[in-house]
């Protein structure tokens, strides 16, 4: 599998955060994500989208992230609740 470009990784992390697979960044501190955390988030996203669970930003995963979709997050965690309250 070819390595995803830095831009793809950056866009993917943004996508995973926006749709609830990764926790939102803390406003007061830089966020450091472990490779395990990112892999788990990708796996959950892949399962949700019905893709093969590789934990990698493969072509199918990147293509799915570029599909037109609803703006709401897929995983309603703390981020979803905070948004609703606001």
């Amino acid at each position: 599998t070819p390595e995803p470009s830095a831009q793809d990784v950056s866009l993917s992390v943004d996508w995973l955060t926006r749709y609830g697979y990764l926790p939102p960044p803390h406003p007061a501190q830089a966020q450091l994500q472990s490779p395990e955390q990112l892999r788990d988030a990708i796996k959950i996203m892949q399962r949700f989208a019905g893709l093969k669970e590789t934990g990698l930003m493969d072509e199918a995963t990147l293509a799915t992230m570029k599909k037109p979709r609803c703006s709401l997050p897929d995983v309603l965690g703390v981020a979803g609740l905070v948004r609703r309250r606001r």
Partner: protein
Amino acid sequence: YALTGSFWKKKQLFWRVRSFPQGSALSQDIVRNLMHYALTAWGTEVGMTFQEAEPRVGTEPEILIDFARAYHKDSYPFDGPGGTLAHAFFPGDHPISGDTHFDDEEVWTFGESDSGGTDLFAVAVHEFGHALGLAHSSAPNSIMRPFYQGPAGDPSKYRLPPDDREGIQQLYGKGPNSPHPEPTRKPLVPPPQPPGQPPDSPSAPVPDRCSGNFDAIANIRGEVFFFKGPWFWRLQPSGQLVSPRPAKLHRFWEGLPEHVVTVDAAYSRPSDGRILLFSGRQFWVFQDRQLEAGSPKLLTELGLPPGEVVDAVFSWPQNGKTYLIRGEQYWRFDEAVHSVDPGYPKNLNLWEGAPSAPDDVTIGNKGDTYFFKGTEYWRFAPGSVVAEPGSPHPMGPDWLDCPPSAPGPPAPRPSKSPRNCQCEINQ
């Protein structure tokens, strides 16, 4: 399906299109018609009605529909053609609750192939699912999948996929005119007694239901079953025990091997109504009271590590997933893909206030989650993972028609133990 935890408490909602798409080939009347049909698709399944509100008359409708561009004063700015298409706000008391926004920069179409644009009806059905309280679903054929899946066909003939029907009916119940009535299930009835063996034979010693410490507790089609050794009690939805005397496990669950004398956990699988009884490292699957071919199965088939047994199993209506508890850990099993979700097991203390290694966990008929252990129970409100204040409560008086164990002098004991008493025919 997945529920957001919020829903409307009324069965009639009002809606209005506040702003129409600019420069779209769709006329305002077509847009209004598509919205009507998209709402009706949900309403017919649950007996809700949606009425279009006149502009500037009376109160604001619950569902205000807008076609907006870019930043439009909420947390979800649109991004031009492609990308995000629409969003809606979950039910609630806030003025924006229920409101639904479509990206005006999409090419909205109706009844055309994918290449012509984005089918407004399909997107509207999805968004109104949010406006009524559903979150995104991972089920393959669900309209609540987050990704656009192409045109949804003729709006006047459209019917929701099963996953979405199940989800919305969890929130609002089944409508009287639901076009998909479930087949009538055979009621669970006790088996006929073998001749010459009266059901309440006084000679057979039975366990005391008021002492708690059940092996398993499960809600099966509205009735709560309490298992203890080779016996069980049934509590009807009205709160009445079918009998204060327990029934024998093997006379009811036909095909359960005689060597299985305790049930560690039990639950009713919502997807197909099958009843699963767990004992040791195996589980048995029943349709009604009959054992299904292929049983027993191993817990490892549910994705649990080899050697594990379970204390409790339940299906959470909030997301339709199955939770398997062992000691202080739990796994979340996805029936749709038939495996444990990544990231599990997790610590049971994520269920705040829950006891470790519960005897069992079950869902009440109003959607509450109940953890049972010993002689106590913990109640969690629907969708909540925090035990209600005051938990635990004594289960005997609330569930099993037992007297409260008040402090003070011990209750007078009968002169003879039940085992030795002689019963008249009417006693």
